[in-house]
């Protein structure tokens, strides 16, 4: 069944037909669809990429090894969508990739997707020792990324820190965000800090 759905994606003759075909393949929830869905991330078609990411996220953990193996080092558009999928699947196997992407990728859409994902990994899948080390790394990286040169990457790091604080390091993160609130030059990012620290009143 999924053979014909894959064929439909390969043969789509217009942008609209492609988006439709990718949604159909995504909804099939077939493991065979994974490589094709990943390929679609590089088609430079936002509608089709959204559909492919949704399919990959619904497949979940089984898609992680292929997503990691196929991560495109040359096409940053495709890489941003793949990182977004890994972030949403939230399997901690992606930790190293997300740490590197958040701190070092030249593309801001990759850095921001990774920063958000770092806060939301399913830590419980790790052994207690591995978990502690992983969370510590995520915290350190997010604190660095919260000073990125691009406002949207800092914004994503705030979102990541807020999510991480729900599991661990709540006090440190609260204190760190209070401090960033003073230093943050961008109005939108500063508003996001206010939302995160719950200082939605006048406390400084």
């Amino acid at each position, binding site marked *: 069944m999924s053979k014909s759905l894959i064929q439909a994606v390969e043969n789509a003759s217009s942008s609209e037909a492609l988006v439709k075909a990718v949604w159909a393949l995504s909804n099939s929830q077939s493991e065979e669809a994974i490589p094709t869905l990943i390929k679609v991330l590089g088609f430079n078609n936002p509608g089709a990429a959204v559909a492919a990411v949704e399919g990959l996220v619904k497949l979940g953990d089984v898609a992680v090894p292929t997503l990691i193996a196929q991560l495109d080092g040359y096409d940053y558009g495709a890489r941003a969508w793949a990182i977004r999928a890994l972030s949403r699947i939230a399997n901690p196997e992606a930790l190293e990739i997300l740490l590197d992407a958040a701190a070092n990728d030249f593309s*801001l*859409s990759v850095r921001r997707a990774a920063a958000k994902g770092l806060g939301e990994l399913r830590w419980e899948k790790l052994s207690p020792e591995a978990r502690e080390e992983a969370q510590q790394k995520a915290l350190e990286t997010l604190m660095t990324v919260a000073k990125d040169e691009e406002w949207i990457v800092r*914004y*994503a790091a705030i979102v990541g820190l807020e999510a991480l604080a729900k599991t661990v390091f709540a006090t440190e993160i609260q204190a760190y965000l209070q401090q960033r609130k003073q230093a943050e030059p961008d109005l*939108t990012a500063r508003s996001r800090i206010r939302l995160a620290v719950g200082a*939605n009143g006048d406390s400084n």
Partner: protein
Amino acid sequence: MTVYDAETAIAHLNQKEDLSLRYYAAWWLGKCRVRDQAAISALLNALEDEADRSPDGGYPLRRNAARALGKLGDRQAVSRLIENLSCSDYYVREACAQALEELGDSQAIPYLRELLAGGVEAAQQVPGKPHLVQPYEAIIEALGTLGASQAQAEIEPFLAHSVEKVQLATARALYQLTGEDEYGQRLMSGLQAEKLPLRRSALMDLGATDYFPAADAIAQTPAENSLKLIALKGILENYLPNEKQELSKEAVHLLELMDSLL
């Protein structure tokens, strides 16, 4: 290897031998927001350049100088940019209108209005060129941002111009000038356009307003997340009444939408 820095860029812009070095330097000074007096003076001189000409008679260096001056935010540039609104090169006029919008000086209003002379009837395509006789999109957007309510009656007919981007620019300006919902709705309907470039335009136009009702439609329109984030940021920042106050329900909703697009 020497490092390319502000000093180098200013020196490159001030020399006359190598035109490509000048062209690059003007762009670089704007990109890096070099606000020294020496940079401003060099760019103002470049706005009078006669040496760098494109095959069709355009002034590439002037275009880059105007764009840079818009980014540098120094009002010394206003009168020279106004003079260049009558430059023979369409792209210089466009860059000047955009720069004057960025500088936010209402002195420019009467000169921008002059470029609308003849109204929609005169706003035709130049034969053999990919543009209209004037950069209407940039002119109308600038008038909206500069709060030129006196120009409202001249702007309004452009809602029916045949070029859709001009229609969107007009809706944007009229929304900025009047705050009326019908113009916000018109911009929002641009998000449904079939062509991606038009949806991108609508996103940028909405980001210049505080039209909160478009927020969910922005998040859902098929376009790059980066552009949607910029549009939502624009609405949020135009919308936030006062940073000392509590974040409103609307502001929180905008932030949540932005979170979902990271």
